[in-house]
């Protein structure tokens, strides 16, 4: 009988050693340790033995059984380890330095610059207003102190529609509506009017690299009891410094615009040459950016705000111009070209 145990022990040893994977091991487990397995069969074959013999033999078989079970566990662990190792070795080395796929969407550059301006003014408590593109003569001209036959109407060649309405030639067309919308709250509750209104404007003119018939402006206005020229300069300087992320130098020159008095042309020091003079700034070191001024009393009055009690400033920033300066776009026509080769580059800009 002892011999039988030894034979089986040797068989198990060899079988387990040669098992190549977990399923072979599992088969071996069933073959030797299962209910109908070889070891169990040994125990069953004991019934003819004496009690002493049974005791001795049984103990030997149980020892074999335990040893086999232990050996199987060890082999399982070994094989698992090998498997992981094989898996690790099978992993190829990737070339992470290969160019990344940057395919993604894009914003129109005007949107990006507009958002920057909006963010700055929103942070200072300004509302952002929306306004139509088709407006009346009253909105665009009469309400902002440009009566019929005023020479200022010559300055802007306006697109008129068949019904007498027009495509707004300036964002100032929204001034009257803004004053009317918020004037009551100013008068009754002392809430200052602080609004910006970005929008598309239209001028009937031939297009070339620096002229477009369709472009964006951003109008801004603030009206309260003691709004001053000093405040106006502050807000303009603050906004431009934020947009350009540098300490922008600005200067005001007198400028004639019927809706403001006094009126100014605001120049910023040339981004390209830093103010020393180059072809972009016509060698002056300054770029004309934005007409602005103190809102004309007639405009306030027409909007229902008492000019004896309140003063305000307004500005009309050329968003298109600003975007061109910021991104160094040379041909204004690229912006409305709808051409993705130009425009898909503006993925985002958190500056």
């Amino acid at each position, binding site marked *: 009988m002892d011999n039988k145990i030894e034979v089986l022990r040797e068989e198990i040893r060899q079988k387990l050693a040669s098992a190549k994977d977990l399923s072979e091991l599992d088969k071996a487990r069933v073959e030797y340790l299962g209910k109908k397995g070889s070891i169990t069969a040994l125990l069953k074959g004991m019934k003819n033995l004496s009690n002493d013999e049974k005791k001795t033999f049984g103990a030997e078989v149980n020892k074999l059984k335990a040893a086999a079970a232990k050996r199987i566990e060890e082999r399982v662990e070994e094989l698992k380890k090998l498997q992981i190792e094989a898996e690790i070795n099978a992993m190829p080395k990737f070339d992470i330095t290969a160019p990344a796929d940057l395919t993604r969407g894009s914003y129109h550059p005007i949107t990006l610059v507009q958002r920057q301006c909006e963010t700055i003014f929103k942070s200072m408590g300004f509302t952002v207003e929306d306004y139509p593109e088709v407006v009346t003569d009253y909105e665009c001209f009469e309400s902002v102190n440009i009566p019929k036959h005023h*020479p200022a109407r010559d300055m802007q060649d306006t*697109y008129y529609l068949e019904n007498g309405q027009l495509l707004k030639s300036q964002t100032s067309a929204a001034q009257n509506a803004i004053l009317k919308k918020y004037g009551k709250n100013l008068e009754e509750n*002392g809430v*200052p009017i602080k609004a910006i209104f970005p929008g*598309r404007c239209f001028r009937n003119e031939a297009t070339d690299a620096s002229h477009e018939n369709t472009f964006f402006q951003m109008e801004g206005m603030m009206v309260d009891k*003691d709004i001053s020229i000093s405040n106006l300069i502050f807000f303009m300087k603050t906004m431009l410094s934020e947009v350009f992320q540098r300490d922008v130098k600005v200067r005001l020159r007198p400028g004639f615009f019927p809706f403001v008095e006094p009126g100014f042309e605001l120049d910023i020091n040339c981004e390209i040459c830093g103010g020393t003079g180059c072809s972009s700034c016509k060698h002056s070191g300054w770029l004309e950016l934005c007409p602005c001024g103190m809102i004309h009393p007639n405009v306030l009055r027409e909007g229902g705000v008492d000019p004896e009690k309140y003063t305000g400033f307004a500005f009309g920033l050329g968003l298109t111009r600003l975007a061109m300066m910021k991104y160094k776009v040379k041909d204004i026509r690229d912006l409305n070209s*709808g051409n993705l080769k130009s425009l898909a580059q503006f993925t985002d800009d958190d500056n």
Partner: protein
Amino acid sequence: MFLSMNWISDFVDFTGLDKLELIHKFSLSTAEVENEILFKGSDLSGVVVAEIKSVENHPDSKKLHLLKVDTGEAELTDVVCGAPNVRVGMKTAFAKVGAKIGEIEIAPRPLAGNMSYGMCCSEAELGISDDNSGIMEITDDVPNGADLKDIYEIDDIVFEVDNKSLTNRPDLWGHYGIAREFAALAGRELKPLGVEDLKAYDGLKKVDLKIEDPLCYRYSCLQVENITKSVSPVNMRIRLFYCGMRGINLLADLTNYLMLEMGQPMHAFDSRKVEKIRIKRFDKPFTFKTLDEVERNIDENTLMICNGDQPVAIAGIMGGLDSEIVDDTTTLTLESATFDAASIRKSTVRLAHRTDASMRYEKSLDPELTVPAIARFLYLLKQYDGGVQVVSALTDEYAYKYDTVELSFDKAFVDRYTGIEIDNDTILKTLTSLGFKAELDGDNFDVVVPSWRATKDVTIKADIIEEITRIYGYDNFDVNTTRSPLYPVRMDVVKENEDKIKDILVKRYSLHELHSYVWAYYDELKELGIEVEPNIKLANATNPNIETIRNSMIPTQLCQLNVNKGYAPEFGIFEIGRVVEGMDENNLCIEKKKLAISLFSKVKDVRDLYFELRDILAVITDDLKHKQLEFKTAEAIHGYEHPVNLNSIILDGEVIGKIGIVHPVVGKKLDKKAAIVFAEVDMQAFADKKNASIIYDEPSKFPPMDYDLSVVVPSGVLFSDLSQCWKNEGTEILKNVKIVDTYDTELFHSITIRFEFSSSERTLSSAEVQAVMDKVIENLKGINVNLR
């Protein structure tokens, strides 16, 4: 407009001051100086006065002459000269050897075999006029050898001001007005103009003059005789030339000079042609030949100067050919007048003829100028031509006088507007230096606006602020933020929605935002076989391609896809822009703000692309509103819409847009292989829909139960029809329904629907789920949907 510092210096003493610095100040305080400042005469040296002592014909040339000239030195100089006007005894400008004229340095050189030691110069060569007809003629009284620059005002600083920046300043259209600004900026006195006393002629007969039209505000005139000189003095011609005008003859030059000096246009008539001056309009149109020999159409709105009933000049614009000064003119009538600015402007536009005079009249000239201009004219004329005789009294009709503008304000007003401290003395001094009569009583100012600023420019208190601050200098301002109270700010919903939508489309779906024009592009659309649909048009479009305002952005985007079809095999574009959807009951445009999206793909089939776009819209709606869109089959009404799969987009029961596939005719023109889908959503309608709040659904602690049902869907039955079958069943426990599989054969279309059940209160029993599903199956059978 070009301005000469020499001319300005006639009226302000700049001794000890930096003129360039003053020009810079002028640019910041008055009007922008454009382009580079010109240093006239700086490239000219070594040119002297020389007298021609002998003239011989050149042996080998018909044109050239051999001259000996006296340059004030001991020896005569040999010169070869080709000018036609050489003669013995003539004095001319002579560039000696070593002289510099522009880039050229004069050196001895042979000309057709003879040595020439210098060059006789024309005025054009010297850069002091455009006269290149011959060498310069210099009067006999000038000594030979004198440096030309010592005799004439050749050295000058000339700068240019953009006319547009002077639109509101009629007083700055002449050097005297400019000099007033310089005087104020420099803190120096403005000298008075030299004028002739016209009272001396009061005893003479008056000119027959009558203003018969309110568009003429003032008409002043004077008759003079016995003008013997015809050529203007050199200095006058240099100034005119530097300021961009050609020298013509003494009278014409003088009227131009006066206009450039005082801003007052003047005109000289042959007195025989203006015996009865009448200013009026005519009832009927006619043609009129102006002195530039152009026949012009005059209508009933154009103001004319007439001799009785015979028109002789277009008021404020140009004189007539027939009344011009001619060779046998003996007496001339000088006109100095003021007209209604708007009328002149409109006539200028009608005639499409803008002159130096009309440009000034358009700006609302000061009528007080007319008489001083005549007095100045006569003063200058007499200086050059002493024999001139005045043969009429000053005749002056002053039909319309502007009101005197008086303004009162206090220092607090100035403080409030400026936000800085400017003291009373500075205010007073500034206003006085600009010609305002200003009086200070305590902190109160009483100001009388000078007539030359009172025609339209300075009418209200705020205008005074500009005068004070611009001379004070904006560079000198302290910059301060406001002290306004703070209140919360509410943002516009459309604007907020817009920003979020752009972010979703760019960041999640990698679409590209483009901008476009608000009109339909005829040519580009034609290329795609899309007709421009009738809509309101521009009344004054200069380009027929952009005449009609678009009624949808989809055609625009199809054009943009066409431009970009080579950009990538697959891409999408979007824009939030405007369209006009016809007219309202008041004949005003119904303008709509739209979100338009178009997708282009050569990779995906049209079904996948269509559902991609549907999902984009669904995600936007879920994200911004926490709501679901519904769709309803729509009828194609535009040529570019595929009649199948065009759907209305519905939110909260209202149609807010449409989604569709491009019509194959258009699609094939655009790209034979690409799938193209589009959607357009009304932004206002979308923004108006309330945002539903998120309702938190606590995850159940009890196991969920799924129930899959495979059904055959007859054609024409939509998922939205199926969903009616479980809409009211098991509402407590049926949490979600989705399609998990589709199976199509030639015979039928089948889908597997997964019903997800769960309860937060109990473990569901198979029986209760089955009970719900039995009802659903029964309902499905009711609409002829059976189990597979």
